């Protein structure tokens, strides 16, 4: 039968058991520690503030040559489209709902995304085959061709995060309550 006395006894027993358990999470702890130097080759993430951008630089002129050699097969001459959609769009129509053209110049919120994506995923058949200088050059070329930066601009870890994308301020979350707030 359940009595207050028995409950008190159980409470004491539970308290004793808890007191002998080690503090903190007792997981299997089967992860192997790794140093920042050793993990660096895998750290491809570029943040909007430029954190993660590597040393190096590139210009639209350098990118033009690289694009013809590495990208035009799928993206078309000067990025006008081919096997896949265009990455260079002249005078894109204003964004207006489903079916809008989402070009680098009229849609993309950040220039850092271009570097991050090209470095991790392109060329499609040979990802990670470009040097960081080449990725900067292709990023510069696409920004220039989409009329975001000038022909003489040099893209590097300092200049790329400062590129103001025209559509940057026109995004909002569907569920604001799910967006983390800084502590």
């Amino acid at each position: 039968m359940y009595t207050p006395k028995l409950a008190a006894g159980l409470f004491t027993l539970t308290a004793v058991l808890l007191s002998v358990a080690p503090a903190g999470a007792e997981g299997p702890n089967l992860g192997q520690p790794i140093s920042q130097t050793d993990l660096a080759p895998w750290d491809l993430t570029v943040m909007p503030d430029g954190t993660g951008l590597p040393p190096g630089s590139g210009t639209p002129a350098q990118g033009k040559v690289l694009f013809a050699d590495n990208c035009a097969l799928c993206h078309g001459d000067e990025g006008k489209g081919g096997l896949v959609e265009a990455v260079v769009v002249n005078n894109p129509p204003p964004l207006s709902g489903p079916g809008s053209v989402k070009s680098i110049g009229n849609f993309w919120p950040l220039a850092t995304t271009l570097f991050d994506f090209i470095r991790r995923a392109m060329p499609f058949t040979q990802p990670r085959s470009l040097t960081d200088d080449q990725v900067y050059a292709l990023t510069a070329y696409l920004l220039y061709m989409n009329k975001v930066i000038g022909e003489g601009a040099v893209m590097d870890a300092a200049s790329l995060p400062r590129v103001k994308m025209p559509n940057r301020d026109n995004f909002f979350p569907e569920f604001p309550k799910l967006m983390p707030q800084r502590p």
Partner: protein
Amino acid sequence: MKTNRRQMTADAVAGNGLLHRRALLGRGLAFAGAVGTAAGFPAGAAAEPLAEPDWSLIPGDAMPPYQVPSRFEKGVVRLTDNPTSQPVISHARTPHHLLNGIITPNGLHFNVNHGGVPVIDPSQHKLLIHGLVKRPLVFTVEALLRYPMVSRINFLECGGNSASLFSNEPVQATVQQIHGFASCSDWAGVPLAVLLEEADVDPKATWLVAEGADAPHLSRSVPLSKAFDDAIVALYQNGERLMPGNGYPMRLFLPGWEGNMNTKYLRRIKVTDGPALTYHEAHTYTDPLPDGKSFQFYFIQEVKSFISSPSPGVGPKAPGYVEISGVAYSGTGRIARVMVSADGGVSWAEAALQEPALPKAFTRFRMPWHWNGGPAVLQSRAWDEAGNVQPTRAEFVAQRGQTKSPATWPQFPSHHYNAVASWAIDAKGEVRNVYA
């Protein structure tokens, strides 16, 4: 058992022949004027005399170590594109019209692969957790298999599922073509919170950035709150290890959230104090709205349902009893109610929900229907336990918009479509996609 016309009348619960769901229990169901025609046989025709079929007269085949469906089911397959692996995205869609229940067989689970299906040796694969943590850690597959695991039945839906319904004119396509980017499985794996705690996350961290070991190194940002809520590093799918197209040997699984965020071939988690705004979250699964602004970070696959049968290609063969069936699901929780209409939304009746109705999982709904052989428009509409309701197409389009000229399947004019869908049935029993 007594059945009569009066009961038939009592069983009608909404317009154009919808019957009370008690008809599903097989009790007292009778259709005035339609008796004996349900399977397309002449009324009153007797069955042929019975004889032993060939397969009952000899022993059967040996059992293969891994069995596959009957050769007579060879048409039950995914709809795939890109068979020669061209350098474009590849898709495989689930044949909902040929399935029942709530579990998608592993071979029929949908896939979207942005750079082909990688062949990953699990003995060489590693998962790195780093960034805003005190102890960066590397986990092998073998190590993760030793962790305490959880398993849950959850749906997974691509943000692009049903996207062709953004077209201003209805595309002519099947349920597999339109809604084939949603599937439901029993996913088992290690709670991500356990691994993050071992790495000792910095209190000022708010996000993580996940990355795959596939060729595009596909990467997505996820709020840390989701990681500590119900995220797992999934290793098993319906009891066996993940299918290659679904992320073998491990993937991030975020119950109820946009498919693309559930990073496949998971190799790296970087804990951060903000989102990276990767290509797929800054560009692809980011939806322009009619006013020129855009949704970014959609996260939740909202409450939704669709009818899988009848549907285009699998319409009713003859007037009489038809079971209307489909799936409902919500990224917020359990399905509470599904209503069905046979007259294009003029009248509605509550469908039976097949148990179990689990949170963030397919819930099978069934609705008995007496098809009188005339035109009908079938619709389903779902509510979840949080009170969210699947919008009508008119409500949805008023907020999200539609194309200005007709789209063609398989275009993706936008993403995250969850409005009510409609199938029109003509007098021949042929079904087509309509807006109603």
